[in-house]
């Protein structure tokens, strides 16, 4: 996260959303956060369609065997500096899908995660709260530099 950090990074965070096998609950809450009621666009947060344009990655899901490689590739495609936010408990620890033959997660086994959002699914406000946590984390890193 700290690599190549610039001052302008945390303003207007562009996020890319990647689903690694979640149930869709978190995904619709992410979209709900972008819609008028929660409207994260007032912070300059925007959902983009390509990882190459993104500053932050929102990952959901417990990472299935087929998606593991794709999640890794998406992470590598993102330009530095980058932040990863894992939304929902199945990405954090496995949640209800904790035993399976087709899962290789949780997400922090595949890519480094900066903030974990707890909830199944988390409310949109919890996602906004996590973004604020990411800002604080960035600022402490910045201050150390």
């Amino acid at each position, binding site marked *: 996260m700290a690599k190549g950090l610039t001052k302008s990074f945390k303003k207007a965070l562009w996020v890319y959303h990647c689903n690694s096998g979640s149930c869709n609950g978190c995904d619709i809450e992410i979209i709900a956060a972008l819609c008028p009621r929660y409207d994260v666009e007032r912070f300059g947060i925007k959902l983009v369609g390509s990882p190459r344009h993104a500053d932050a990655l929102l990952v959901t899901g*417990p990472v299935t*065997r087929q998606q593991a490689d794709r999640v890794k590739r998406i992470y590598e495609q993102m330009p530095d500096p980058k932040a990863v936010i894992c939304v929902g408990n199945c990405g954090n*620890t496995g949640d209800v899908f*904790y*035993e*399976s*033959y087709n899962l290789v997660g*949780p997400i922090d086994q595949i890519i480094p995660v900066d903030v974990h959002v707890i909830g199944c699914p988390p409310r949109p406000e919890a996602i906004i709260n996590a973004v604020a946590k990411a800002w604080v984390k960035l600022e402490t890193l910045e201050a150390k530099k």
Partner: protein
Amino acid sequence: MGQTRDIGGKKMSKNLKSEEILKYFKDEFKTKIKEGKIYKRVAGSKKNEKLGIWLKIDRTIFKDFIKHLCALQFPHLSVVSGNDLGETIELIYHFTLNSGKRMKEIELNVSVDLPKSKPEIETVCDFIPGALVTEREKQEMLGVKVIDIPDTRKLFLPDDIPDNVYPWRRDKTGPEKYYKNLHEVKK
């Protein structure tokens, strides 16, 4: 482009009764129908009935059975489910009949036993093209060979799981080798 034609024409509009269906098949196939029973469930304040039939048939008449069923009324194939019973693999075809009539629908569950040494069954895709997805799933999940299936590729499982691992089996071809407990990663 107003296609409102019902497939099967008049047959679709015919209202079948559960006893009639059971009798029809028992007369047609006699002892090859191993078991047949009707079940009922009631629901709501008015206690309206919901009907269904369980049939157990011999696998030699399977294709003929489907042919007769399609002639009786074109069924809706919901799904094919399967059990690994140790010596045999049981496939259950879940059909529904009489769709489009208020509270007249009948569930028809047809079960076929296949020996585990030679788990083979004929495809029904030539009668019901919509069965393709569920038949492909049975091939990879239970290791049943569907004869003459139009598409033999895998559907759900990733390519790096070998061909002789069948997740729904309860013997040594099961998926235990690939088991992972995500909670054990970190404590």
